[in-house]
């Protein structure tokens, strides 16, 4: 096929701006290279510049669990995808329009995703026989016609980088490390991105190693200059993606970790509590520990515990003593915490558990995303142990969910599971900065009245128990994991009392349904042929897919569930208004089971368990197929 007749970009009307740059509505770029090639850094810096340009954007970092996998191997390939546009976007994009492959292994792994006719930028310097063979190619893909249907740009980035840093006092190894910056420079030229934020960042990052900063900046500028001066093939042009029209306000690029961190801080402030954060390092949750550790001046105590159990137990101890106990982990770590979560449920103490879900079971695929801990969150403890569960849909939503988790935990005196996802933790998006003053305060009132006090005195409406903290005169009391008497809080093995206490704990959590918004549709009609029901990070992909179907006149609605437990009061009624219910999840069908058992509705599962986010096109196709069934 002739290259100039295929591909999404080629078929777009070539509108240009005054400088002759082709105007694009949106573009998806994927940087791929060896895990030591600095692809995540390249992607992050490109994202920062893109955000500052005013585009809407969504990113998807995809990297191996190994810190430095053997060089040149396919399993050591690290990639970073960014989708940016002049309109609102919801996903990091199905398939890249541009693939930057820093070595043969990166090409091998990612070429299959590149759109037909897409732009392929190859670092020729890495395509030696050894690397080609290591990537599993039997012939050089640059020579055997494999790449004929793409706009191929072969550049010896390694060599050009070495030339760019000549005269700067760096070793050859250090010089070669700058080739990601050279590549970034070229992409900044191609897409009209400002290099200054990256230069500022490099100067800050390598403040104590000015020669390294200098070499990186030289490489960045050289890549940019190469674009300006080199005789590039005619089909390679320069582009501009105009600013997105978004709500006025001050924006910044954020990841889910940052928003979770600030949400917890805001929530704690609204509750009038100090945060105690007990955590044990685990992928992909550790960045939250790092972020909170930098907030000591807010009275945040972070405790890197000896294990997951100590992490949750110390947080629970802190809650007992009057702090906001918070712990975080990923699935396997949450499994270890589950006995202590039972203790939190039975002692009715506030506690936030942030679960950055990853592909399981067991160790699974630590750096790959999944949403397969819903069962664990809702059901995964011994005994009848109900716990509220909320799930964030986007990096921005993590902020609101974190605040909501604090509100519910303190108001209802209960541990709350905040389901986050590896994808949300790492992915970046523009965020309109909120005003903390818009969040209604929910100050905690510790018990102080000695008259008639016992530790399980309950609020009549919420059924939350009173919170008496050590240090309070006259309220000395003992709590623990043994069942307690409803009327005195003393140990009780009475059978009727246990029945009553179990029901009360259950009802207390169910009461939250009166305190959360009713379930609405995100888009589409409130009843009809099909509801596509999702939760968590699939929000964007499902919304985009259903919107496309709606544009074609199909009767499809999108329902997004944030409150996994308890479910919204009206959800059952809403679901019953649809002929079909399709539940796409990045697991083997967990929410779908919950909905079927709760409402006896014929919900169908659409399971994808690949460690990768849904593609909009796949969802759209599946929706259309199932509508016709």
């Amino acid at each position: 096929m002739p290259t100039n007749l295929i591909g999404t970009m080629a078929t777009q009307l070539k509108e240009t701006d005054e400088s002759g740059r082709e105007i694009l509505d949106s573009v998806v770029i994927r940087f791929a290279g060896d895990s030591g090639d600095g692809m995540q850094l390249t992607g992050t810096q490109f994202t920062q510049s893109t955000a500052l340009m005013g585009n809407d954007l969504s990113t998807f970092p995809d990297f191996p669990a190994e810190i430095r996998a053997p060089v040149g191997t396919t399993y050591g390939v690290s990639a970073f995808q960014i989708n940016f546009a002049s309109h609102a976007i919801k996903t990091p994009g199905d398939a890249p329009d541009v693939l930057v492959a820093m070595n043969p292994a990166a090409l091998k792994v990612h070429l299959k995703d590149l759109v037909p006719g897409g732009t392929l930028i190859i670092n020729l310097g890495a395509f030696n026989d050894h690397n080609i063979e290591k990537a599993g190619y039997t012939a050089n893909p640059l020579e055997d016609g494999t790449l004929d249907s793409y706009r191929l740009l072969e550049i010896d980035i390694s060599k050009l980088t070495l030339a760019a840093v000549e005269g700067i006092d760096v070793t050859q190894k250090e010089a070669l490390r700058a080739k990601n910056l050279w590549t970034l420079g070229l992409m900044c030229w191609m897409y009209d991105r400002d290099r200054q934020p990256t230069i500022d960042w490099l100067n800050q990052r390598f403040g104590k190693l000015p020669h390294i900063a200098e070499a990186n900046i030289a490489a960045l500028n050289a890549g940019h200059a190469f674009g300006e001066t080199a005789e590039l093939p005619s089909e390679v042009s320069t582009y501009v993606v105009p600013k997105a029209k978004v709500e006025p306000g001050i924006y910044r690029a954020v990841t889910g970790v940052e928003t979770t961190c600030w949400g917890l801080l805001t929530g704690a402030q609204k509750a009038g509590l100090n945060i105690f954060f007990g955590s044990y390092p685990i992928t992909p949750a550790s960045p939250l520990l790092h972020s909170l550790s930098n907030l000591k001046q807010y009275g945040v105590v972070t405790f890197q515990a000896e294990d997951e159990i100590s992490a949750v137990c110390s947080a629970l101890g802190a809650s007992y003593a009057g702090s906001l106990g918070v712990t975080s982990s990923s699935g396997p770590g949450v499994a270890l915490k589950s006995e202590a979560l039972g203790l939190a449920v039975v002692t009715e103490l506030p506690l936030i558990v942030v679960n950055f879900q990853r592909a399981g079971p067991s160790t699974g695929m630590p750096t790959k995303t999944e949403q397969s801990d819903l069962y664990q969150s809702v059901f995964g403890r011994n005994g009848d142990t109900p716990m509220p569960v909320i799930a964030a849909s986007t990096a921005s939503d993590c902020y609101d969910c974190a605040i909501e988790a604090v509100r519910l935990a303190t108001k209802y005196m209960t541990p709350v599971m905040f389901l986050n996802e590896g994808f949300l933790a790492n992915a970046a998006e523009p965020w309109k900065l909120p005003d903390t003053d818009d969040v209604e305060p929910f100050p905690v009132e510790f018990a102080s009245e000695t008259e008639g006090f016992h530790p399980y005195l309950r609020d009549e409406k919420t059924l939350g128990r009173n919170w008496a903290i050590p240090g309070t005169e006259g309220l000395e009391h003992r709590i623990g994991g043994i069942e307690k008497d409803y009327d005195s809080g003393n140990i009780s093995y009475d059978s009727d009392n246990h029945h009553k206490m179990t029901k009360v704990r259950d009802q207390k959590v169910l009461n939250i349904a009166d305190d959360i918004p009713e379930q609405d549709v995100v888009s589409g009609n409130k009843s009809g042929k099909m509801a596509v029901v999702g939760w968590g990070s699939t929000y964007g992909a499902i919304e985009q897919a259903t919107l496309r179907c709606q544009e074609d006149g199909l009767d499809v609605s999108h329902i997004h569930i944030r409150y996994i437990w308890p479910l919204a009061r009206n959800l059952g009624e809403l679901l019953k208004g649809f002929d079909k219910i399709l539940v796409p999840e990045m697991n083997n069908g967990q929410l779908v089971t919950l909905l079927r058992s709760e409402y006896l509705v014929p919900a169908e599962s659409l399971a994808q368990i690949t460690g990768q986010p849904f593609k909009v096109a796949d969802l759209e196709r599946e929706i259309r197929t199932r509508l016709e069934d």
Partner: protein
Amino acid sequence: MNVQSPPEALKPNDYASDQEVRWCPGCGDYAIVKAVQRSLANMGADPKNTVFVSGIGCAARFPYYMATYGFHTIHGRAPAVASGVKLANPDLDVWVIGGDGDMLSIGGNHTLHVLRRNIDVQVLLFNNEIYGLTKGQYSPTSKVGTRSPSTPAGSVDSPVSACVYALGCNARFVARSVDTNQKVLPGLLQEAKENKGASFVEILQNCIVYNDGVYSSFTDKANAADGQILCEHGKPLLFGKENEKGLRMTAGKMELEVVTIGENGVTEDDILIHDETNRPLALMLAGMQPPNFPVAMGVIFRDPGPSYDEAVYDQIAEVNEKSPAIPINELMHKGKTWTVV
């Protein structure tokens, strides 16, 4: 929160809760709870600022019997919960209670870390060398050959010494007493409390049902003087009915030996002086086993150092000094932002 002395001096009984004690009659735990209550009264401890945190096991029922704050947690995890309590409010006086199974088996890891971090809590390990609440299985401190429901032909694995373990964990206060020794135990608890940092106290406790008499070879009245040695800093390590026996270093070897004053030319000058700041010596004393050696009691090791909780709050104060908290709105605006109009 300020620690204030209660207006009237409380008596030991004032620290007892109204809950009926449910240990077996004759259990060593009764003596321990009495000693703790007496010790708290002696110190004038304020019940509202006193917290007992326990794990699971017979010993772990302890908090229910105290008229203070108490948290009966889950098996093995009391040191972890207590760490959170203390870090959330360093003004609280936090006591950790557990047995040998709780603190050296399922929770051995947490015991290690609360001690090495030197969090300012008192860790009381009730060691009865058996699992009581689960009906008599052998424990990690049971001697080789212990017959129990799970080891009918006798246990084959080596036990751990609680105090040697604590010393290996870098504990800065390690002490030992017998449950019924009301002369030594309350004072020891007071010293544990006064030590800033993690204080580890092993209390040898007799389980009357499943392991009765396990310590009688050195705790029975007739055997105690020859079977135990009370370690006191700066004093010679003497024991025996007439204080006629003592410990000294064997010439040319890194080991202790028991000698009798007046025999083989031994004088009191030959006897080792206890130096509670000497960890290698403490390891040797803590490791002494009957019948060849007396069992070491008292403060075996004490070398105070900065406590973790203090260091954490010092760091918070330091950061606050250098870069005080700004409103969260401003915090979120720090870094690269852009404005859409």
